[in-house]
């Protein structure tokens, strides 16, 4: 709907030529010079804004035009739409070297705020941030009775402090802290007067009442953001803004902040002893401003927590209560970090809050900052943090995985607070099945987060289980979908994919026969065991086309790469063996989502090779399992890349150079298995059910057989026979259909090269089983290319020699 109209308009704005723009600018100049700035001017400025903002490249506006825009912005009486447009245009052009705008020319605080927005967008090339800071401070310090509204200035201050913490001096910080104290604690508790009192309204009619709480009761204490009224006074507005910027301000002016005095530690200690002494006294005005501000902040947060127990009359206010709770906990956390004496007062209050909220699913997002608080201060306060985590990690993900915002916040909580878990890290790592529920349901948003989180979750105890879980992740998505369908609806709009109906899957989910498997899949904690979920893969097949399952399956290869990068850091020899076995086993036991298997096979085969490279002796150690794998022929077509990697690894690492335990018997056994496999592969005809076997499988089989023969030389005649058969087969017309012409050609060439090589057994051994010193200085780093190069060279040599021989 918007695209079509917007597209053409944007195009026009972009394609306007310099000349036309120049004319337009002069028209604007004319309009802006008039005394009466009417709707024409506004209309033109709207267009100018679009022209400037539509393109990412610079638009050169006439200097006179720019100057006029700046002047108009600072006119004493200018309708707001015009002011706002001038500021917006100037801001859109920023950073700009030709700006002459300055805070000196502004007439009132609203203009000052607009000018500041333009100046702050310049990128602080000419100390604009400092300049703005000084102006704002000056304006804030002037206490004129009907003075300009200070409401417009606090947000600028907050932005300035965020952009450039060093912009304020120590005394300026103190001054502003004092004013914040006033606004936060001593705002009026009477409602404000409506703006338009009018000439005829009587004094009685204008009598405002007291402010109320969210549930309508009369306010019991000082004014906060959760206080209601029909109209608000200036200082009440400032109360709202002051609280909105409080946390950032406390961090800025705290002991870690740049505005701290030089004698840090000493004054801090003194300050805290003072506040401990005066903890119960209300005559806190003896405290220096920074400490007094903390005290006021503490009282404010406590009041908010009390106010949040009331039932709000409007939904918007109820949402605000939760946001206030989160902020209150965050501010209390900052306060306790800055001054430990707050901790003892805060703990009881927050423990009670936690107790109240843990049963309420609507407030679950407040539990995260609470948990962080207990994590940070738990030790100092001897709080049993374990109970907090148990609830958080056991129940929350299992019940609320479907909420995208909660999922994001929860995972961020895990990522950001790793350093706080300390000895309790196992609670996090053992809860990985629950965490994976977030990932399975919200994979696009959370994949990157989990790539960062996996190194923490993967350790020696969980590694194998996590690998299985990652390979079964799309299956988990399907199971979660079924779980939602079978539970009573939580909201009006169903949370699952309504376009997909799968009654058979739902039945299977409820079938007691499969309860065990589903429960294992949906378990909240690492169980230390593995279950074969192959029956579930079949049962859930109808759901494989579900969009959410498909999205999850797309994320799995990335996660697998991250997993293997992490696990190779912690893998011992035994663990590496276990992982290889998992790879082999799972390569044909995957949930059949379209393209999922192919992608996973690619990852698994490359990771298998990486593991072999790390620990070459595993080929000999796991010889039995590898033989079993190679014996199951039906798998070749569906997992060609896996087979190729295994066969290649056998050829490469099954020798005494890599493991002294390698026996001739083993080599012979592998030879036979591979020979059989090669036969099977070449004899079978491709059909509708069997995809054609890629020629790489054939060539790698041939090469590996030759390698093995070069190590156990009585196999050479057998291999030569095999190779010549293959060569003949490749030349026959029947060969080109399963492998394609190029494939057949490649097979033929390779067979020839190998045959030639075998004519000189010692050279063959040298080429095919090079010792370590020879192996390292290769001209090509890629192992897969070095061998063909060697083969080709030798072939040519042999052929040349053959042609030189007489007869």
């Amino acid at each position, binding site marked *: 709907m918007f695209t079509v109209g917007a597209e053409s308009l944007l195009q026009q704005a972009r394609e306007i030529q310099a000349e036309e723009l120049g004319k337009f600018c002069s028209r604007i100049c004319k309009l802006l010079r008039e005394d009466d700035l009417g709707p024409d001017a506004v209309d033109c400025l709207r267009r100018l804004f679009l022209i400037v*903002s539509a393109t990412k490249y610079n638009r050169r506006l006439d200097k006179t035009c720019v100057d006029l825009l700046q002047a108009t912005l600072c006119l004493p009486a200018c309708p707001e739409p015009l002011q706002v447009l001038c500021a917006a245009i100037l801001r859109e052009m920023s950073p700009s070297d030709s700006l002459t705008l300055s805070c000196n020319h502004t007439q009132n605080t609203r203009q000052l705020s607009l000018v500041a927005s333009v100046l702050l967008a310049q990128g602080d090339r000419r100390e604009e941030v400092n300049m703005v800071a000084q102006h704002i401070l000056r304006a804030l310090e002037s206490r004129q009775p009907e003075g300009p509204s200070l409401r417009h200035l606090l947000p600028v201050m907050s932005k300035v402090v965020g952009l450039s913490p060093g912009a304020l001096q120590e005394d300026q910080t103190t001054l502003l802290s004092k004013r914040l104290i006033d606004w936060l604690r001593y705002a009026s508790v009477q409602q404000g007067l409506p703006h338009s009192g009018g000439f005829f309204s009587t004094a009685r009619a204008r009598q405002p009442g007291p402010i109320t709480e969210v549930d309508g009761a009369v306010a019991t204490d000082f004014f906060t953001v959760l206080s209601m009224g029909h109209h608000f006074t200036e200082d009440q507005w400032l109360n709202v803004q002051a609280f909105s910027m409080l946390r950032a301000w406390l961090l800025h002016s705290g002991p870690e902040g740049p505005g701290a005095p030089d004698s840090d530690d000493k004054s801090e200690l003194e300050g805290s002893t003072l506040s401990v002494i005066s903890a119960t006294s209300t005559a806190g005005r003896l405290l220096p401003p920074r400490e007094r501000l903390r005290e006021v902040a503490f009282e404010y947060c406590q009041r908010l927590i009390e106010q949040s127990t009331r039932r709000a009359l409007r939904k918007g206010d109820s949402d605000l209560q939760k946001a206030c709770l989160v902020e209150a906990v965050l501010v209390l956390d900052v306060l306790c970090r800055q001054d430990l004496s707050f901790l003892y007062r805060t703990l009881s209050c927050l423990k009670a809050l936690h107790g109240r909220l843990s049963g309420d699913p609507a407030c679950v997002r407040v539990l995260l900052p609470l948990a962080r608080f207990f994590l940070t201060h738990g030790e100092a306060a001897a709080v049993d943090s374990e109970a907090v985590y148990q609830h958080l990690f056991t129940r929350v993900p299992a019940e609320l995985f479907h909420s995208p915002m909660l999922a994001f916040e929860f995972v961020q909580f895990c990522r950001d607070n790793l350093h706080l878990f300390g000895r309790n890290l196992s609670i996090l790592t053992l809860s990985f099945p629950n965490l994976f529920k977030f990932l399975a349901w919200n994979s696009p948003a959370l994949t990157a987060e989990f790539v960062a989180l996996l190194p923490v979750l993967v350790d020696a105890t969980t590694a194998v289980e996590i690998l299985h879980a990652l390979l079964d992740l799309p299956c988990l998505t399907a199971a979660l979908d079924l779980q939602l369908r079978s539970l009573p609806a939580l909201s009006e709009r169903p949370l699952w994919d309504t376009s997909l109906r799968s009654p058979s899957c739902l039945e299977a989910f409820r079938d007691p026969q499969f309860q065990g498997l589903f429960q294992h899949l949906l378990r909240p904690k690492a169980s230390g065991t593995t279950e074969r979920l192959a029956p579930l893969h079949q049962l859930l097949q109808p759901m494989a086309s579900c969009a959410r399952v498909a999205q999850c399956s797309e994320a799995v290869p990335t996660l697998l790469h991250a997993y293997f990068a992490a696990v190779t850091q912690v893998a011992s020899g035994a663990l590496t063996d276990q992982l290889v076995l998992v790879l082999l086993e799972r390569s044909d036991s995957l949930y059949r989502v379209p393209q999922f298997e192919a992608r996973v096979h690619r990852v698994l085969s490359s990771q298998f090779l990486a593991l072999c490279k790390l620990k070459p002796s595993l080929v000999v150690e796991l010889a039995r399992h590898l033989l079993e794998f190679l014996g199951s022929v039906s798998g070749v077509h569906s997992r060609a890349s896996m087979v190729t990697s295994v066969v290649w690894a056998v050829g490469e690492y099954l020798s005494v150079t890599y493991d002294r335990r390698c026996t001739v018997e083993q080599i012979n056994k592998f030879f036979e298995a591979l020979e059989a496999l090669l036969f099977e592969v070449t004899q079978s005809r491709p059909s509708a059910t069997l995809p054609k076997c890629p020629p790489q499988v054939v060539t790698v089989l041939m090469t590996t057989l030759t390698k093995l023969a070069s190590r156990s030389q009585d196999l050479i005649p057998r291999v030569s026979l095999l190779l010549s058969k293959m060569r003949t087969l490749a030349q026959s017309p029947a060969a080109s259909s399963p492998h394609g012409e190029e494939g057949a050609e490649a097979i033929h060439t390779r067979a020839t090269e190998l045959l030639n090589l075998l004519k000189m057994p010692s050279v063959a051994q040298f080429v095919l089983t090079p010792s370590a010193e020879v192996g390292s200085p290769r001209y090509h780093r890629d192992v897969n290319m070095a061998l063909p190069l060697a083969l080709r060279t030798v072939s040519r040599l042999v052929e040349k020699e053959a042609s030189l021989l007489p007869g």
Partner: protein
Amino acid sequence: MVHAFLIHTLRAPHAEDTGLCRVLYSCVFGSEKSPDDPRPHGAERDRLLRKEQILAVARQVESMCRLQLQASGRPPMDLQPQSSDEPVPLHEAPRGAFRLAAGDPFQEPRTVVWLGVLSLGFALVLDTHDNLLLAEGTLRLLARLLVDHLRLLAPGANLLLRADRIEGILTRFLPHGQLLFLNDQFIQGLEKEFSAAWPR
């Protein structure tokens, strides 16, 4: 603190790839510190970078929204308004959040909170430690205000030539990127103020 607010187009999930994601409006509150760039066109380069950062965010939001709608099986028509009388059900609109790593595309790591309404994407680019619950609420409020005051449900509505209204709303409800704890009464008060300066 909010670093930027943007509105961009959202194409329906199953539509062919017609055209690109367009940023219809963006506002950057203060700027990241420009690296010391003595070259003559440093300022222009900065602006180019800023614009491209915003576009990168818009594209990511669009794909997140598209994926979410696909995953929940909602029809693509969901993004179109049913009629101009029905209030837009914002609490069920597709929404989410994701993190941007440092350098990709902003210097500092940032969080993006987004909302999809009427084939428009609204997004806030925040600092990583901002109050997400408040940001979500603010974004929903801004979307509601913009839909109401710009009459986005009416046929032929567009917001490209209505930047002054958008700016007016932002200066009141998200001044300089400051997230405000506004209860319903405050919101009503501000809305009245806004309507006074911008009569319908």
